[in-house]
């Protein structure tokens, strides 16, 4: 990566390889920002992220907390007059941020829960009792009752190295 305000053209090409050329179509109209539910509550500005991506400024984007205020609601994407793949671009930038070691503890914990249980929500005795009261099987018919299935999920996460990326960061 180059110094933080010098455009990094090599980085920009990796972004385009990942999500296509639509980042270059953005003409900074601001429709995305004015549609953004998260931007209403915070200083997060969708348009600014797009402009920084267009310039090729990873040093400014990847460590930034702003990147993580998007709820992926797709409102901006639906309304963008230039067909910019906004959510795809934000997703790609987030993937890069994770690989560069910028990930919150709360998010790391979710990945660990996913690896350990195959679900993102832990189960409990209370919920199993309630399931029984409702006439459901106490344990749902998922990885929760099938150790081999859980191993398959863990195998996938090992193959894609997500867990290792997190541990190394």
């Amino acid at each position, binding site marked *: 990566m180059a110094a933080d305000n010098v455009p990094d053209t090599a980085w920009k090409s990796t972004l385009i390889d990942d999500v296509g050329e639509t980042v270059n179509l953005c003409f900074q109209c601001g429709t995305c920002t004015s549609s953004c539910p998260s931007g209403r509550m915070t200083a997060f500005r969708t348009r600014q992220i797009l402009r920084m991506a267009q310039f090729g400024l990873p040093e400014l984007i990847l460590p930034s907390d702003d990147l993580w205020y998007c709820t992926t609601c797709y*409102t901006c994407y639906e309304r963008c007059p230039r067909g910019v793949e906004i959510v795809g671009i934000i997703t790609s930038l987030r993937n890069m941020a994770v690989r560069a070691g910028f990930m919150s503890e709360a*998010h790391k914990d979710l990945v660990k829960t996913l690896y350990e249980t195959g679900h*993102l929500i832990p189960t409990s005795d209370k919920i199993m009792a309630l399931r029984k009261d409702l006439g459901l099987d106490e344990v749902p018919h998922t990885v929760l009752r099938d150790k081999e299935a859980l191993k*398959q999920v863990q*195998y996938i996460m090992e*193959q894609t190295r997500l867990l290792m990326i997190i541990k190394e960061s």
Partner: protein
Amino acid sequence: MDLAFFVGCIAPLRYPGIESATREVLERLGVSIRDLEGASCCPAPGVTRSFDVKTWVTMAARNIALAERQGQNIMTVCNGCFGSLFESAHLLGEDPALLRDVNDILEGLNMTVTPHGVEVRHFAEFLAKDVSDNTIKKSFKRKLDLDVAVHYGCHFLKPSKIKQLDDPERPTMVDKLVELTGARSLEYKDKQMCCGAGGGVRARHPDTALAMTKAKMDIIKEAGADCIVDVCPFCHLQYDKGQKALGKDYDIPVLHLAQLYGLAMDIDPKLLGFEAHDIPVKLKV
């Protein structure tokens, strides 16, 4: 093709009433389902996809491959699950290089995913498209006298280019399904606005998520809603737990569409799992 019920995480493990209501309602409508055995988290798009697209699409592909093995299309009751599975199935059908990469990993599990092998359906659009209004109405035992704030959520209709279910800005699909019960679906400001939970925001920036929930709740209260009806357990959780966290006396019960249909079918409320809700479901229906 029969349907494989993909339960996800939040429905079975936080609001099991959504799962039981779905089973009861589909049975009364004569729709047969089987559990998708060995399924995992979809995995949740807002977080998993944001962290690593390849992990997201491969885990989703495994769930899709399980359905292929059962010879059934997938039925979800959650916008997140629908988003992950539908969009992954779409990508795998469009992108041969991605398909190859994913199948390379699945091969290690003696599994494989076929492009366009199964369809991914959402409970709400399935009812709207595959079950007639008459059949639905005939299954109802009473008319619900309620003013409902429908919340579509984001990943049910969007991205609309690939979902192609309804107008993403002014949809009517779920409003119509709600009105079949006799309830009135309210028009309200910012109806299509996100609940605030998605994209990993609830986990990383809970106060920002809650600020969005508050904006919605203030409008919904102002509109005079008796309850919120959603089609997504994650939005459901955000509204139910969010009201409690906000500490205001909104007191607006949150029901999944399956639970609302359960009430209209006069299913014992005990089987609809309202016990798990933070905001008590006391409705004069």
